[in-house]
């Protein structure tokens, strides 16, 4: 008897989803669209960026470096500066967003002193672009160092760049996990919180409460279809990332899906928490938007590198669930590491689920108001 009561509930929830064109659009079409948009339109990959070269040596090594920059496909020499102030004016005109300054006597110093400094100047009015350009330039210089050491120079151009696993800074590495987080947050957290508050708003919650259903049955019955949908969407995103955008799937697939599932449950518990705190669908939606979506986008490291944030925001990002999910996702998918390297993330995500669910259960009202 209990099982059928429960299946009734889940069936009903499925019908709500299938019969509402808007919901259907959000849960089925949007993930695919968002994936493609992130992939092709808002790609963070920058090609043929204009660069200012201020070459104070103009010897065979610096020429070679400039050539290498141009050949990388990421940069195109726009201005050859004759004096330092040319850089500032090029930036002000908007001709370029990055400049490279080679010191005088470049080849000579490398031979004699064993080290030189290359200065990278970026236009930081667009911090995101600047940091990307910066890392591109660093990548090119690092590889240049490797080349010249092959020519017998004891090279040390003092630039510290660590870009393991993603030497070409492929944007897909960043946006596929990021899109997954967004979609999962949207479908599970937002849609469940809305669908639960909808029952409150329509007054059907009144009848459900008066029925012998336990609160847990009501909640689980309502969220189960969204778990299935979210999981399905994750698979679609992973598949698209793999086939369309050439994202590697290096790690253990079972572990990967396990982590995805864990995050779905986490997003769900957040959605339930929001629904217990809000009385109307609109409130639930705004809470999901401002309390979940924006922090997810801004603070999880999805778009903006956590390392570049002010200390306070870095601390804040520690309590953002997506941060840990993204980290685990990248470790498994891109670095191909096993459970041993993501146990911390898994533990933190599990802990968050326990906390959110406990608060939700405490807050869930067995009565009105």
């Amino acid at each position, binding site marked *: *008897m*209990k099982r*059928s*009561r429960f299946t*009734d*509930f889940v069936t*009903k929830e499925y*019908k*709500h989803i299938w*019969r*509402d064109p808007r919901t259907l659009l959000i849960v089925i079409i949007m993930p695919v669209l968002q994936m493609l948009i992130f992939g092709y339109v808002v790609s963070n990959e920058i090609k043929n960026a204009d660069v200012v070269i201020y070459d104070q040596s103009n010897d065979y090594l610096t020429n070679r470096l400039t050539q290498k920059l141009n050949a990388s496909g990421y940069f195109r020499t726009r201005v050859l500066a004759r004096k330092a102030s040319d850089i500032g004016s090029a930036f002000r005109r908007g001709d370029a967003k990055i400049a490279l300054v080679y010191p005088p006597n470049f080849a000579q110093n490398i031979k004699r002193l064993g080290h030189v400094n290359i200065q990278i100047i970026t236009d930081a009015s667009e911090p995101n672009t600047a940091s990307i350009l910066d890392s591109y330039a660093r990548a090119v210089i690092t590889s240049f160092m490797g080349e010249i050491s092959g020519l017998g120079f004891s090279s040390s151009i003092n630039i510290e760049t660590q870009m393991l696993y993603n030497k070409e800074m492929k944007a897909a590495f960043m946006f596929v996990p990021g899109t997954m987080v967004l979609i999962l947050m949207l479908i599970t957290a937002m849609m469940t919180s809305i669908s639960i508050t909808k029952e409150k708003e*329509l*007054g*059907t919650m*009144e*009848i*459900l*409460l*008066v*029925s*012998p*259903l336990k609160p847990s049955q009501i909640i689980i019955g309502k969220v189960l279809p969204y778990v299935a949908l979210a999981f399905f969407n994750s698979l679609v995103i992973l598949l698209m990332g793999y086939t369309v955008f050439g994202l590697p799937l290096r790690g253990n697939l079972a572990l990967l899906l396990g982590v995805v599932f864990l995050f779905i449950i986490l997003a769900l518990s957040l959605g339930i928490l929001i629904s217990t705190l809000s009385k109307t669908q609109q409130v639930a939606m705004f809470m999901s938007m401002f309390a979940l979506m924006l922090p997810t986008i801004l603070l999880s490291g999805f778009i903006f590198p956590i390392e570049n944030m002010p200390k306070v925001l870095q601390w804040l990002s520690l309590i953002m669930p997506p941060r840990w999910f993204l980290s685990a996702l990248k470790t498994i998918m891109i670095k191909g590491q096993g459970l041993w390297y993501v146990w911390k993330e898994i533990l933190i995500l599990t802990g968050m689920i326990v906390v959110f669910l406990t608060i939700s259960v405490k807050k869930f009202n*067995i*009565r*009105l*108001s």
Partner: protein
Amino acid sequence: MEKISVNSISKSYGNVEALKGVSFNVDGGELFGLIGPDGAGKTTLMRIITTLLLPDSGNAKVCGYDVANEYKKVRTLLGYMPGRFSLYQDLSVEENLNFFAGVFGTTVQENYDLIKNIYYKLEPFKKRRAGKLSGGMKQKLALSCALVHKPEVLVLDEPTTGVDAVSRKEFWDLLKELKMQGITIIVSTAYMDEASLCDRIALIQNGKILGVNTPTGIINAFPYKLFSIECEKPTHALENIRSLSICKNAYLFGNSLHFVSNNEENSPEIIAKTLEESGVKVDSVNEVSPEIEDCFIERMQRQ
């Protein structure tokens, strides 16, 4: 046997006292009406009985179970139809009914006897989405859903509000039939004319019970002589009439005026004469027996 007992229940929302020490009992198999205007506290009381709200003080029992402490037990015994249409608009008639049967752990077939009189009118539309039904149909569906698990006590919060006159009458006929099947029904309404259809009624105003009795009992307890006056410009005449020494109270009642006499000696002739003297053009004065609304107004003034 008492199916519902309400003992000095009070409930406030902030500074607003919605209920001020309300008490009454509903016997088994009774069709009990809670009659009062909007804002009298009917819905709050219904929600306390259905375990959806906790009273600030006092207690209520349904079939002997306390609505606060034994709410789980109470919830299995109740059928509840909230004031607002509270079914799933995007599910069909049939699906709504099946769902609510499932929620209560039963099937439509199991209790079909109980709802067949209501449901047969809906049957032709069973594939239609609930949101597309007319007001009267929605109300019948909501009643079917509240009944599908064969509750001992049926709680209906203003079921006829916003429903046309024909559907209202049909609805009360259905309630009578359900009563015959032994279900205890408590129904709230702001329509005074529906009071006479109940076995017993409680008049409620400003969170206080003004009286509990059978409709006839309430009417018989009306302590004054009552006259119906037809005159020109009743609204204008009202103030004039109220200031008369023989008048206890006067108010508009439909197209006429109701005149509550403050002594037993008054007759239509005396009243007509006094009115003419004070400058009111009277068409007719008749002594009438009071209706529930008259009793309600009288009791309200007594407070």
